[in-house]
């Protein structure tokens, strides 16, 4: 028997064993774990090494980055991965790759934004363990939960590399064991990527440099091509100025080839005797100082001909600032220079022309405000430069006429305001030397640059005083001709194309009584127009005489047919366009008639040609027996014939046939002069000769000297006839004397009548006044009152008789004195006067149709109207509506004054006699019987009439017909 083991001890041991086993299996598990991890690590490293071998083959950084982004997923088994490469400063050229594919820049933006938020500012490896979606501001990567990233910033190259692997929340449990392992390996991986990227980038840079160098080589080639092909000459010298190279253009313009001149100095071959020495000095100084120089130089061609060269020389330095070359660009500007010279020559020629044609020219430069006047302009202002040069503008303004200055300055202002580019003006200026006013026509032009700023004003000025005067004269003479035409016996009608009348000398048409002068406008087709007008009855007939000349028959207002010669012409305006028609019209009616009668006479003459001799005999007989003294002279003033009377009565003419009249009348120079006048003027000359007869008595002879013309209007002979007018003369003289005496007597008589009437009336009026007084101041017995009334009536009748006799005498003897008189005024004055004698019971009315003004003799008209209206009042009836009505109206020929009443009227047997002298209608008439007689006398003196229409007991109407035009009779 074993010792009875203690159970407890046994249990203890078991427990210990148990523990050991547990510990062992734990270790075993650990070992397995480690092995697994190492396995996994191995796998990762293996994958990594595959990636490296791939990565090293990458041709450029882009491929590498794409590959890396793919590799992060492949190697580490992240869910997804991004690789970002970008510059620190500018993020424009950022490149983002996602699982091996480049993300386009638009989509990349949000992701880059998120990557920056997640990784910055960490450098190296980082792990985000909390959920990304808890972070604010994430735009694209919100749904990821965990991230491994690597961020590396290369300060030297300024680039930043970000590599990130991401795991989403959903898949997080699958990646539980990833942590510790990945940390290190991810770091290694990232550093590897970064270093490979660095290498690739460097090689890329080198590649780029190589490319640049290649490109600049190309550029150089191009440049040398340009230098060769350019039209400008190019010379390249060494630092000493010796020619190394020239291009073809230089050879062309200078004539030298490169071979000929290489190694020589340009100045030795190009400069010649006429090359400007100052320019040469500037050139060599600049070269010595190694400076840029630009100038124009006269150069010589190989052949010796000259040309202008614009030269620009540039020194070329190497990097050590040593002078290595001069490059000289040359341009042949001979043509430009010549053109410039030509312009100068033209300018001076223009100046010459301006001077010769007296055009004043001025220029105002705006930059420096300088003004230049040419000599002509100074001359126009009558000044010398020295006098006014200190203030040309002030002088100019002071010279302008005060009436013009405002207008001139205003125009100038508009020019300054750029409202106008040029201004044309006319104004007056006062010359400085003689104070004379002259008129200038000026043109001012404003020159501006491209931006519209005023550069200068240029002006020209012409003295047009004389032209202006001539123009005014022309206008005046035009007026004169117009008047002349108007008074000429020649018709002119001008119309425009619309047939409106433009001009017509009315007097011609009034005189000839042509109603429609425009019917004579013939227009473009005269014949057609004429036919039209004949059809319309405006013209009677026409006959074509010349291309544009027609003989037209037309009827005037007096129904006479007129023959007109119408010449149709066209009017052109300044642009030489047809603007109207002008017709010249000649009245040939009388010529036409003359021609006809002449034709008849010619015919007659032909038939009588055989009887010429007997005709001559007949005329001689007639002439010899004529009561006139007749002489016939040849055109050369030899006496051809004298009649017997002349030969008998005037001694000079005795036996004078065949003699020269000059000899015959040598003691009668006046007579001789008249004969010559008739000979020269081809028209009738009359004279009155005062002679003494053989008894010494006065004798007057009237001489007619008639030139006789043949058909060709040549003088054939002069016929002198003389008539003794002594008796006639005596009678005439006595008539004139008697007439004068009569006039004197008339005037005296008028004076006499005036005084007598006054002297007769004065006491009469005194009596009238006294009777009035008696009635006013005292009460008289009825029969005395009756006597006094009768006395007053007698006084009144005597007074009116005196008045009428006075009026009658006046009318008979005094001349008419015509002036415009107002009938309305005259009648109303008469009405007022009459109211005193017939104050009540009659209405006085007047009606005037048209103007109340007529031209007449006021005194006579007053007497006439006073008499007739007075009668109407005097012979009124005592009825309630008694009236007198005066009506004035006008007819075509006369003014009618109608005086009607409803008075007593005139009986049938009286009506024919009312206008007779001293006729009195009734025994109750108060008048003299002169009144109406006087009225008729007066109106007949005016050339008018008076009519009466009346009925006994009903009323009468007197009508005065007063002609519009009263004729004065001597």
């Amino acid at each position, binding site marked *: 028997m074993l010792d009875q083991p203690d159970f407890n001890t046994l249990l203890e041991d078991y427990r210990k064993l148990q523990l050991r086993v547990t510990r062992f299996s734990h270790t075993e598990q650990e070992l397995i774990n480690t092995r697994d991890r190492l396995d996994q690590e191995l796998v990762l490293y293996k994958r990594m090494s595959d990636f490296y071998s791939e990565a090293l083959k990458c041709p450029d950084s882009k491929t590498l980055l794409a590959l890396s982004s793919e590799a992060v997923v492949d190697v580490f088994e992240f869910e997804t991965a991004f690789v970002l490469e970008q510059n620190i400063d500018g993020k424009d050229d950022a490149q983002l790759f996602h699982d091996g594919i480049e993300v386009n820049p638009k989509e990349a933006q949000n992701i880059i934004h998120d990557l920056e938020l997640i990784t910055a500012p960490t450098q190296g490896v980082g792990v985000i363990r909390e959920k990304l979606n808890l972070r604010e501001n994430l735009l694209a990567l919100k749904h990821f939960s965990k991230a491994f990233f690597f961020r590396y910033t290369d300060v030297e190259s300024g680039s930043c590399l970000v590599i990130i692997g991401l795991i989403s929340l959903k898949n997080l449990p699958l990646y539980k064991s990833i942590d510790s392992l990945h940390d290190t390996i991810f770091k290694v991986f990232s550093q590897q990527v970064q270093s490979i990227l660095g290498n690739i980038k460097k090689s890329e840079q080198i590649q780029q440099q190589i490319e640049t160098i290649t490109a600049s080589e190309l550029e150089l080639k191009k440049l040398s091509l340009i230098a060769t092909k350019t039209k400008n000459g190019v010379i390249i010298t060494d630092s000493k100025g010796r020619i190394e190279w020239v291009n073809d253009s230089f050879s062309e313009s200078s004539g030298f080839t490169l071979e000929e001149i290489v190694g020589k100095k340009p100045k030795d071959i190009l400069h010649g005797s006429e090359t400007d020495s100052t320019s040469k000095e500037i050139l060599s100084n600049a070269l010595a100082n190694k400076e840029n120089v630009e100038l124009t130089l006269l150069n010589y061609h190989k052949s010796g001909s000259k040309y202008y060269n614009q030269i620009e020389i540039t020194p070329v330095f190497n990097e050590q600032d040593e002078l290595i070359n001069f490059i000289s660009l040359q341009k042949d500007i001979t043509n430009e220079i010549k053109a410039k010279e030509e312009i100068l020559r033209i300018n001076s020629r223009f100046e010459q022309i301006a001077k010769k044609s007296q055009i004043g020219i001025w220029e105002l430069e705006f930059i420096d405000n300088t003004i230049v006047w040419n000599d002509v302009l100074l001359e126009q202002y009558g000044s010398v430069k020295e006098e006014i040069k200190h203030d040309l503008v002030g002088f100019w303004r002071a010279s302008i006429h005060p009436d013009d200055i405002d207008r001139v300055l205003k125009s100038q202002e508009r020019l300054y305001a750029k409202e106008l580019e040029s201004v044309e003006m006319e104004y007056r200026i006062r010359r400085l030397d003689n104070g004379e006013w002259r008129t200038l026509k000026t043109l001012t032009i404003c020159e501006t640059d491209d931006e519209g700023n005023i550069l200068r004003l240029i002006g020209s000025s012409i003295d047009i005083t004389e032209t202006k005067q001539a123009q005014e004269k022309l206008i005046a003479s035009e007026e004169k001709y117009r008047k002349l035409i108007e008074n000429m016996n020649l018709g002119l009608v001008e119309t425009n194309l619309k047939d409106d009348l433009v001009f017509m000398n009315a007097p011609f048409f009034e005189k000839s009584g042509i109603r429609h002068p425009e019917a004579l406008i013939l227009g473009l087709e005269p014949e057609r127009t004429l036919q039209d007008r004949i059809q319309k009855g405006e013209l009677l007939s026409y006959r074509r005489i010349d291309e544009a000349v027609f003989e037209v028959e037309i009827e005037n207002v007096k129904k006479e047919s007129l023959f007109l010669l119408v010449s149709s012409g066209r009017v052109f305006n300044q642009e030489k366009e047809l603007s109207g028609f002008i017709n010249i019209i000649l009245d040939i009616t009388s010529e036409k008639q003359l021609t006809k009668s002449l034709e008849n006479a010619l015919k007659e003459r032909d038939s009588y040609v055989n009887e010429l001799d007997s005709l001559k005999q007949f005329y001689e007989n007639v002439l010899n027996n004529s009561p006139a003294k007749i002489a016939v002279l040849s055109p050369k003033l030899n006496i051809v014939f004298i009649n017997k009377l002349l030969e008998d009565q005037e001694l000079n003419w005795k036996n004078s046939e065949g003699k020269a009249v000059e000899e015959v009348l040598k003691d009668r120079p006046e007579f001789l002069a008249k004969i010559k006048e008739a000979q020269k003027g081809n028209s009738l000359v009359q004279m009155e000769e005062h002679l003494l007869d053989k008894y010494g008595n006065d004798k007057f002879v009237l001489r007619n000297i008639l030139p006789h013309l043949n058909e060709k209007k040549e003088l054939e002979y002069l016929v002198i006839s003389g008539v003794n007018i002594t008796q006639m003369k005596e009678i005439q003289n006595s008539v004139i004397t008697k007439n004068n005496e009569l006039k004197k007597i008339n005037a005296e008589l008028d004076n006499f009548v005036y005084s007598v009437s006054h002297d007769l009336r004065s*006491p009469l*009026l*005194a009596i009238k*006044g006294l009777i*009035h*007084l008696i009635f006013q101041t005292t009460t008289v017995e009825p029969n005395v009152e009756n006597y006094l009334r009768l006395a007053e009536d007698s006084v009144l009748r005597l007074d009116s008789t005196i008045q009428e006799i006075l009026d009658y005498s006046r009318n008979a003897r005094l001349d008419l004195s015509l002036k415009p008189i107002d009938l309305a005024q005259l009648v109303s*004055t008469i009405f007022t*006067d009459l109211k005193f004698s017939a104050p009540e019971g009659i209405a006085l009315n007047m009606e005037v149709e048209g103007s109340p003004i007529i031209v007449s003799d*006021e005194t006579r008209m007053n007497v006439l109207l006073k008499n007739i209206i007075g009668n109407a009042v005097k012979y009124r009836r005592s009825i309630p509506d008694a009236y007198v009505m005066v009506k004035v109206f006008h007819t075509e020929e006369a003014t009618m004054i109608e005086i009607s009443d409803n008075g007593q009227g005139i009986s049938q047997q009286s009506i024919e006699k009312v206008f007779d002298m001293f006729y009195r209608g009734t025994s109750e008439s108060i008048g003299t019987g002169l009144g109406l007689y006087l009225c008729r006398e007066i109106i007949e003196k005016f050339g008018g009439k008076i009519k009466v229409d009346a009925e006994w007991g009903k009323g009468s109407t007197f009508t005065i017909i007063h002609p519009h035009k009263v004729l004065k009779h001597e």
Partner: protein
Amino acid sequence: MSKFILVDDDSTMNLVHSTTIKYHKKDAQVMEFKSSLLALDFLKETVQEGGELPEYIFLDINMPEINGFEFLQTFEKLPKESTQSTKIFMITSSLDLRDREKAFSFDSVYGFICKPITVRTLTEILSTTERRMDF
């Protein structure tokens, strides 16, 4: 009280006129002149002594010595301030229109009246203030 001066060589006419005036206007003071020269002298003296000229002058045209028109010429040469309140009426037996026209060429003439003046004419003369061609 109105002052009147009558100038007429016909003394009967003066009598008729002065009576008519006084009859019509009881307080009127009327002076009659048969001689136009004396009338003028009186007016001149009145002016020299600083007296007041009459309100109305009735003047005949046809008179010996100086006629009515010559009277007017002299009268209008007197100082304006003394003559301006005087109205002259031509009283005449002339019917000649030329006389009437001539009369109105003088500023101081207010009317042209045919003799004799009646009470009716006088009433109109005294009530008028303007120059009138006819009464």
